[in-house]
Every structure is written in C-alpha cells, then in structure tokens.
C-alpha cells in the first residue's frame, strides 16, 4: 500500500477512527495520546488485539521521538495522525526534533539477550516497530521528521486466531 497516498480527512463519523492530535514531548503526553488513539480505534470497531498492537507501535515510535529527537526535553511538539487505509491503520508522526542519525531508520535488530549482568534494558523499541508494522517510512522535510508506519490488520490477528472480535465492523 502507498503510505504517501494517505490523505487527511478529519471525518468524525462514529465508525471512523481517524484523528489528528498535537501533543507535547513528555512521557505523560505520550500516554494521553495512546489513550486517545485507543479510543479512536474502539470507535472504528477494531478489536483488542489489533488495538494493542497499534498502541505498542505508537508508544515505541513516540517514545523514540521524546527520548531521541527531543532528547527528553519535553518542550517539543509532535503531531500524531491516525489514518485508516484499506486493511491497515497508518500512523503519521511529525516532529521538529533532531533528525534520525544518517537520515535512516534504525534496523531494529534484537540483540542477543545474554544472561543476568549483561541483559539489555533497552533497544527493543525499533525491533518491536519493525516486527509489528507492515510498512515504515521516514523522511526529513524542511526541518521536520515525518515518520509513517502502517500496521496491517489481517496477518497478525488471523495468526492469533481469536477471530470475530478483531473484524472491522
């Protein structure tokens, strides 16, 4: 699917999950945005498994912006858009923080876990995004980071086999 073709439509139809939020860059702002996104997905008729996946992907992407693009300063702005594509939800995040190093997205490889003393306490964020998203794109445009992440509805939910509750309306 073409992420770039996702157009804005602030449709407040009761079955439409699309939304746009402007938030600050603190962990509490992230938490509130996640709650709003989940509410939007409930409105759109999405089931708990899919909502959980979108929430985790959005959390990791926003945490990355808060911790790295804005370096934990909390004074930045982030625009969060949730768009409905055929068979997927697209998350579009815009911020004016530092660009991705080398202007490329992290590979998100899972490090060997090791044991006890050398267990990693971080570095899971991009691994989870890449694992759960169907498509990810990043560009830097006029001082703005634009990250788009699509989460496909079918494969994950079908694989978990809980059936009906995750079916869109």
């Amino acid at each position: 699917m073409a992420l770039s073709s996702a157009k804005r439509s602030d449709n407040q139809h009761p079955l439409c999950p699309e939304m746009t939020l402007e938030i600050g860059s603190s962990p509490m702002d992230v938490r509130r945005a996640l709650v709003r996104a989940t509410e939007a997905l409930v409105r759109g008729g999405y089931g708990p498994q899919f909502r959980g996946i979108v929430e985790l992907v959005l959390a990791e992407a926003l945490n990355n912006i808060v911790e790295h693009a804005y370096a934990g300063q909390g004074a930045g702005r982030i625009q969060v858009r949730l768009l409905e594509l055929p068979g997927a939800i697209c998350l579009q995040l815009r911020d004016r923080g530092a660009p991705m190093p080398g202007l490329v997205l992290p590979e998100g490889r899972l490090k060997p876990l090791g044991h006890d003393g050398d267990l990693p306490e971080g570095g899971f964020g991009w691994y989870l995004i890449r694992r759960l998203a169907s498509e990810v794109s990043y560009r830097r445009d006029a001082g703005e980071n634009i990250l788009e992440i699509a989460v496909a509805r079918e494969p994950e939910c079908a694989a978990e086999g809980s059936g009906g509750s995750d079916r869109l309306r």
Partner: protein
Amino acid sequence: MKLTCRGTEPQVITVGAPRIDAAAAIQFKDAMRAALLPEARRVILDLSAVEFIDSSGLGAIVAVKKSMAPGQQLDLAGLTPMVDKLFRLTRMETIFVLFPTLAAAEASALSEPALRFGSDAPGH
C-alpha cells in the same frame, strides 16, 4: 506506582497500576527496589492488573531482575494478552519464567521450592 506485597517464600508483588510505560518506568523500578525483600529467594511479580507495558517498562522489569541478589529469582505471573505478546516477541520467556496466572506461579513454588532457572539444573 502502587505495589502490594505478600509473603516471603515466595514473595508476591502485585502491580496495582494498569500501565508500566515510559511515564511510569522509573517509579516502577524505585517501588520494586523498595519492596523487594532481601531474604526472599523467589519473587513472583503479579502483572494481572497491567494492561500495557512498552519497551521502557520491559527495560524496567529487566533492570529490577538485574538488581536482585544472585540467589534470587524473579518470575512473572498473570500476563495479560498484550503483555504476554511483548515478552514473547522480545524473547523474554528465555529470561523469565512466565506463568499464566498467579495461582499457577504459586503452585509451582509449592511443588518446586528450590526452582532455579537454567544453570542449577542437573546435567544429563
């Protein structure tokens, strides 16, 4: 971060908050370090009320495990579906023993009081 503690062998620590996310990770770590009994050999972290954990929360749980004394074990119980998925995606089931319910974790404590994960198991 609200934690409720019960017993010493095992010590059961129940998380009373619905989220262990980036906004709560430090509080969680601090509360856990204060709650952990040094004499408990096995600690069961009851996550049945936790609906959401992100990678920051996961890192905080790993950090708690790393801060424990060498003879102490941290098991996780009552993982809700998304939390369970997070732990399995990140292969944490190779680091922690995961129990579907607190009752299952406690039953395991009764039948295997000296349960150790990994290296103490007798070789073949």
